[in-house]
């Protein structure tokens, strides 16, 4: 037996990830919670998870689904409903007699695990419940729609997301979802480090899945469905599995997005949110987890922070209040995206991952 050694490229990868974590911890300790950099890290990590979950489906299994916003919505509402503190419920559900849910998971756990640990456990549990609910709906939706292929699947899942958005705002279920009113007052992880760590754990799970025997089967389905089926891979079972797992993580991502936004309304989970995430997946590289994560951070950082000046009249020292008006940064970022797509036909990373960048290229495309 050969002795297994950890390659240099994995060592570098670990170093980079640890460095990112250290920088975040440093920023957390130096900057106030409302600082734009902290906000960017939080939002970008949430978007990373959602983009990676979409990549699992669209990039690794080859199922073109556009239901992501719908599953995020389910996760977001589950989190909010389960976490609003009991004494705030009367205020939040003012039109529905304080709502039907009369407990708050973080408070329940704070009761016997102590305030800090207990509420964290409760919050994470609420996120997971959101994921499970999203996964359950994915299972139900998957039974009929996964028979469809490519564009038809995309339209069916898009329709599902829109239907969910409307149902959530339905007055009849108002005592649970507060209908079209905001849900607010639920707790948030204060630090960006917590976001980064939690998202890191979830993305690590997806990475492990993609590199397992199931992940290989997903890629086989993507590459050639007929051959995959002829080699004993049950298509219906594996497609459903990918759909359910992807939705599970999208649900968690939705819960964390709700956490980040501080207040959640079904209105904000429009199909344009799905397109935004699809954009991250495509620009990052379809089938590259590193690409999705990197692009999420680049995109959110430029949109929320670096290009802000374009909207407020001053950018890179240039003052042009006439041109740099509200909305101008959206025009600029669209141009940037078009240029990126022109130069990187397969996305920034293609189908490569972080460790691949440190591998020395050999002749004939042979990998180590």
């Amino acid at each position, binding site marked *: 037996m050969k002795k297994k050694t950890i390659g240099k490229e994995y060592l570098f990868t670990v170093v980079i990830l640890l460095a990112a974590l250290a920088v975040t911890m440093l920023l957390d300790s130096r900057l106030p919670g409302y600082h734009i950099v902290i906000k960017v890290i939080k939002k970008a990590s949430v978007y990373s998870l959602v983009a990676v979950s979409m990549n699992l489906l669209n990039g690794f299994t080859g199922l073109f689904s556009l239901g992501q916003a719908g599953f995020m919505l389910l996760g977001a509402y589950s989190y909010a409903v389960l976490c609003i503190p009991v004494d705030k419920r009367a205020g939040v559900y003012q039109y529905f007699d304080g709502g039907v849910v009369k407990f708050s998971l973080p408070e329940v756990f704070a009761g016997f695990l102590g305030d800090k640990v207990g509420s964290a456990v409760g919050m994470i549990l609420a996120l997971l419940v959101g994921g499970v609910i999203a996964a359950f709906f994915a299972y139900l939706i998957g039974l009929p729609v996964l028979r469809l292929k490519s564009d038809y699947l995309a339209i069916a899942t898009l329709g599902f997301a829109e239907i969910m958005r409307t149902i959530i705002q339905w007055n009849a279920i108002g005592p649970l979802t507060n209908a079209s009113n905001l849900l607010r007052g639920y707790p948030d992880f204060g630090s960006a480090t917590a976001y980064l760590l939690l998202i890191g754990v979830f993305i690590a799970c997806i990475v492990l*899945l993609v590199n*397992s*025997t199931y992940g290989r089967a997903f*890629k*086989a389905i993507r590459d050639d469905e007929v051959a995959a*089926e*002829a*080699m004993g891979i049950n*298509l219906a079972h594996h497609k459903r599995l990918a759909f359910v797992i992807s939705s599970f993580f999208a649900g968690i991502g939705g819960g964390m997005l709700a956490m980040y936004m501080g207040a959640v309304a079904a209105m904000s989970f429009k199909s344009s949110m799905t397109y935004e995430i699809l954009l991250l997946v495509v620009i990052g590289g379809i089938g590259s987890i590193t690409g999705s994560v990197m692009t999420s951070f680049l995109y959110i950082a430029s949109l929320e922070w670096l290009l802000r000046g374009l909207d407020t009249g001053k950018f890179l020292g240039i003052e042009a209040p006439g041109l740099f008006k509200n909305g101008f940064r959206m025009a600029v970022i669209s141009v940037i995206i078009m240029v990126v797509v022109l130069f990187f036909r397969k996305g920034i990373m293609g189908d490569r991952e972080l460790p691949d960048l440190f591998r020395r290229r050999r002749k004939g495309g*042979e990998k180590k």
Partner: protein
Amino acid sequence: MSQNILRLENITMQFGGVVAVDDLSLEVNEGEIVALIGPNGAGKTTAFNTITGVYEPTNGQVSFMGEPIVRNHPQGKMKQSYKGKEAEKFLSAPVLDPTPDKITKLGMARTFQNIRLWKSQSVFDNVLIAKHMLRTSNVFSATFRLNRAEEARQREEVMELLRIVGLEDVKDELATSLPYGKQRRLEIARALATEPKLLMLDEPAAGMNPQETDELTEFIGRIRDEFHMTILLIEHHMDLVMDISDRIYVIDFGELIATGTPDEIQNNQRVIDAYLGVEEDA
């Protein structure tokens, strides 16, 4: 008497008004290499597809190792328009229509006429993915690496298989970067990785030059000997078929026109007519 592996009874495949396979019955016994030949459009691949679950036959039954696995009788509109024979024979028996993956799991693995390898995967992974169906792990144990022993064993088996078929040195290359002949070998290796009892080859020598065909002939013979494999193949190259087949079935316009050993087939007047054509009237 050796064991019967595959038996087709009265298999008929009708598309609309066209009968592509008409009342085909054949048998493959353990350890045999059986060839199914016929001119272009005779219905060979269609027959193949009804065995492997790609098509549901209009009528007839396929048995594997003595067990019926595919069975059908004309239903619905087809009841009126059915042009084949033996429409009553399977009427009372339940319909069996498994998907291709279920049939592969029973122990029948196939290759494709137009090579269908997984393009973005390495040679090694192409074979390893075929091992997926033999897993005992579920998605959790696989994700969290609780199936290490199984994974390691499967990797060993894949290496061994690649050694036997002579693709060990190119195991990390992209499957599609291999030369044509090696891609064929890889496809056969991939089918073998599912540990089948019957190997089904759909025109393995399609598009090969005479030298590559010779190598393939030798290779298929070696597979039979080393794996004690039973093989059913469809082929156009007569040298290959005559060299390695134990028995041959010839079909033309969906119908079985001859069966026998290579010598018998070579001297069969109907087969010669089918391939060369007969003058009408005269």
